[in-house]
């Protein structure tokens, strides 16, 4: 398998960026977000005042050819663009649905979890959160409870995985984080499904456990195994593309 060989060769590559964005980070600029006042192009001077006039060219492994404009905040245009495309990929793949098990057509495999995992591996837990939540947002309008389940499961999958992979930044670390993420997601999928099934079917939680568990457990086991294997095979080529 060519892709796994590739993973061997680049174990030491640093995948996460040093200044990974975190949405819980306090905003530095403190500009008003919205106001009706007009500003002329000439005197418009947003956050120019709170950065030093000359930003060192290559600080913190930043782009050596950056103009310094993006260095003020944590959301450079590059980061916004990458997040947007990952969210779009996650949306596209969340609309793919392949039934995995005969007789249970409402449980379907979609590969969007792979996108969440890769975002977390490449850009850290905050990226995993953003892609997991925003990527499913279109489903909020069509399937409200399904949206909640999908987001919770995607978070359980990608956030622990990215946290572990950030600490253990090796191929072995990737395996550990994928297994851990898979287990968390498995638990989350079963719990949330047990909770929401009574909304769709007139059953008690006890009945659901007896009836659904034999279906839920194998389905999700297969699902997260596929997620893990595919992610493991492609995370190195993809992260190499990201950091070229």
């Amino acid at each position, binding site marked *: 398998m060519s892709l796994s060989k590739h993973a061997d060769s680049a174990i030491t590559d640093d995948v996460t960026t040093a200044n990974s964005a975190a949405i819980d980070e306090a905003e530095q600029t403190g500009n008003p977000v919205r106001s009706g006042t007009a500003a002329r192009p000439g005197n418009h001077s947003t956050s120019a005042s709170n950065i030093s006039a000359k*930003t060192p060219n290559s600080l913190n492994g930043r782009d050596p050819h950056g103009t310094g404009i993006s260095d003020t905040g944590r959301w450079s245009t590059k980061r916004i663009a990458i997040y947007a495309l990952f969210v779009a990929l996650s949306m596209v793949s969340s609309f793919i649905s392949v039934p995995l098990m005969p007789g249970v057509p409402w449980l379907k495999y979609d590969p969007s979890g792979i996108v969440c995992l890769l975002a977390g591996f490449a850009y850290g837990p905050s990226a995993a959160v953003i892609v997991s939540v925003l990527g499913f947002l279109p489903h909020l309008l069509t399937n409200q409870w399904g949206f909640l389940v999908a987001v919770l499961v995607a978070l359980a999958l990608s956030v622990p995985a990215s946290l572990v992979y950030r600490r253990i930044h090796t191929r072995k670390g990737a395996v550990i984080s994928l297994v851990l993420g898979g287990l968390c997601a498995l638990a989350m999928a079963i719990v949330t499904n047990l909770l929401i099934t009574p909304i769709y079917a007139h059953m008690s939680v006890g009945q659901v456990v007896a009836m659904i568990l034999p279906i839920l457990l194998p389905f999700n086991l297969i699902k997260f195994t596929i997620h893990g294997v595919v992610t493991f095979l492609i995370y190195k080529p993809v992260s190499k593309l990201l950091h070229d």
Partner: protein
Amino acid sequence: MSQTDSSPRSTTSGAESKSDMQLGSLSPTPVVALDHISFSYDSGQHWVLDDLSLTIEAGQRICLIGANGSGKSTLARIIAGLITPDRGQVNLLGHPVFDEEGPRSDQYRMARRGIGAVFQNPDDQIVTTVVEDDLAFGPENLGLDHATIGHRIVYGLDAVAMGEHRLDNPTRLSGGQQQRIAIAGMLAMSPQMLVLDEPTAMLDADAQSEVMAVLDSLQGQGTTIVLVTHKPSETLQADRIVTVEHGRLTNIANPYRPGGKAGKSQTHSPAYGPAARHDADGSLHAGAFAHAGDGLQPASASKPADHSPDLAGKGHLQAGQSPAVGQEPAIQVSHVTMSYSREDQPTLYDLSLRVARGETVALMGPNGSGKSTLARLLAALAWPDQGSISVEGISLAKPSKQDRRNLRQHVGFVMQHPERQLFAETVAQDVAYGPRNQKLDPAEVNSRVTRALAALHIEDLADRSPFSLSGGQQRLVAIAGVIACRPSLLILDEPTAGLDTMASRRIYELIELLHLQGTTIVLITHSAEEARLLADRTICLPGHDQQADGQGAGKPAEPATAAASTPQVSSYIGSMDPRVKTLGFLALMFSFFAISTPLQLGLSLVLVLGICAAARTSPVKLLVSTRVLVLLFVIMSALNLFLDHSGHILLALGPLSISSGGVQTAVIYAARLMLAIMLGALLMETTTPTQLTDAFGSLLTPFKALGLHGQELALVMSLAFRFLPTLGQEARSIIDAQSARGGSIETGSPAARLRALGAIIVPVFAGAIRHADNLSLALDARCYEQGIHRTHWRIMRVRPSDAVFVIIVAAYILALLGLKMAL
């Protein structure tokens, strides 16, 4: 809009043409002054730009030319203030943005406001799903007031003659129109200078002239224009043509221009690299544009069979022998009609054609005439609605899996932008993908790979990562990956689009070689020159007049069913504040799940019908939109039918029984879910994606204290919506291309299936990342920054009518609870 620094072009006299190459030009208003700049991507191992100096005067039109990889795009980005050099000094619009101490971000910020930048791929520069919102994006970032933004939108659209498309979805416009919108988006920011990096590279001839006409009119208004181009015709109006060669400049005045400065064209400073190869007007073609040099003969003069490796190996047609154009047809198409959706005008209508074995046929026709569709039909990637197709004796009207597999042994398909299908770790592995899928033994695979690479003169790239190559090299590698399968019929869809002369020549040479070896070739092209040079015969597909604008250049024919939301602004629901609407609808949708009695259901039904009426939407239409979930409803209802045993038994089937309570539960559970889905569909129908993301961003602002970046998240969301169709379409063409090389996820060993999956996922990610790179530059060019104060073109205002809706929602929820208590 006033162009502030619009000095007449005549100030650029010939006497300056020598001095303005140097620092401290005597000219009064240099818009750009680059002083001894150097640029390297690998910290100084190779210099893309090497001690280069350039001055550009206000109002000039400068063309930057040079071969692929000469550094002209890098230079354009430095001029546009998007990247910095490693060394030297940069002054843009009078702002000292870069010197020995590094970049001055505040100066860059100010300079960028006066510089517009337009890039190759129009698709990657458009940030929203409505044309006018896209034009508003830049002015919003500049913090302009509502009225000014309105004027700027009108000005921008008028300047590119796109006024009637103001409310259209830009992703559904043609490539030329998209590029005009991208230019308009820059003009809306009222720039003094416009930097364009091969803006017509991905456009067909008509679209190219559309864009060039816009530039001519801007030039007339005094805007400084810096144009990077490959095409000699695009330099006609230039004041100055600057050749970038090996990171250095050669300066030439424009010899084409009537009464121009041809006489002064020899005055270039000897300090700037090798002397230009232009001595007389006529030789500019060969000198400045060809750059062939590297041992390649012009295709028209070459006899490929004499010096090229025998691609087909022994046992095939002997090289050098004139190909036998047989009478047996390789392709037989009879009365084929094909449309992507029922409502559509058919893309192909009653088409018949025949291609003899060994023939090279050029397929031409305007955009939207179905060339790419025909190519997909011939490669068995799609099926015709009517008519019959036979390729290499295999009937493709309704091909079986086995037929398709057989066909793929014979037919090679080079899709548009085939470099997008590259996925493997090395070039050699990528080229080997097709032969390996044919289950050849390893020695044969290796020999195929070697020969394919040799045929394109890229043997030296075998161990490189395909992603580290230049665009032109990637194209050659991708084509090698197709010919390594040894097709007897090769279909090429615009194989030289966007390539420089040298890379194009290698492809011409390959086509001639394969032709001599007896391969049947179908070449889709926009260039009559290419057709004349290579083809035995040209087939022109008739265009559909009404489709002239229908499709983007460089894209396969696109089904017209792509998400086009037509919000009904006139209705009560349609004109609601999107924040109130979204929150209200969500509250309703969630509360529907509390419905448990017929009375509650009745109340909710009345509410939903009322909302439909207020939105002027037929509830039946919404119900139809829930049809994809019918299966879910059926299973759910069946489950509920048998689970609930309350009430009296209506029917007993052995151990299973159906009770009246079961029926009631089944109906209520299905109905409440259906109501929720209908409301969701209604919300999407009456709200544009832009409104939704605006509402999303606005609703997040209270959480700013918690560190949630509402403005940025809303932009991420809006860009994601914008790129959905693009990514979907790309994924489809990558799947097509890899299937044509025999990759299959559905069949084969688990390892082979995983490899097939990787061959799709990796290029899809590579494409997404490529879009992100381009998009971030486009966001920079539009002056977007995190946390800036932005104004909004679409003003959201909560009005009394919105308050009425809130009261109705609250009353409904209370009534629902009341009915529950009453029981």
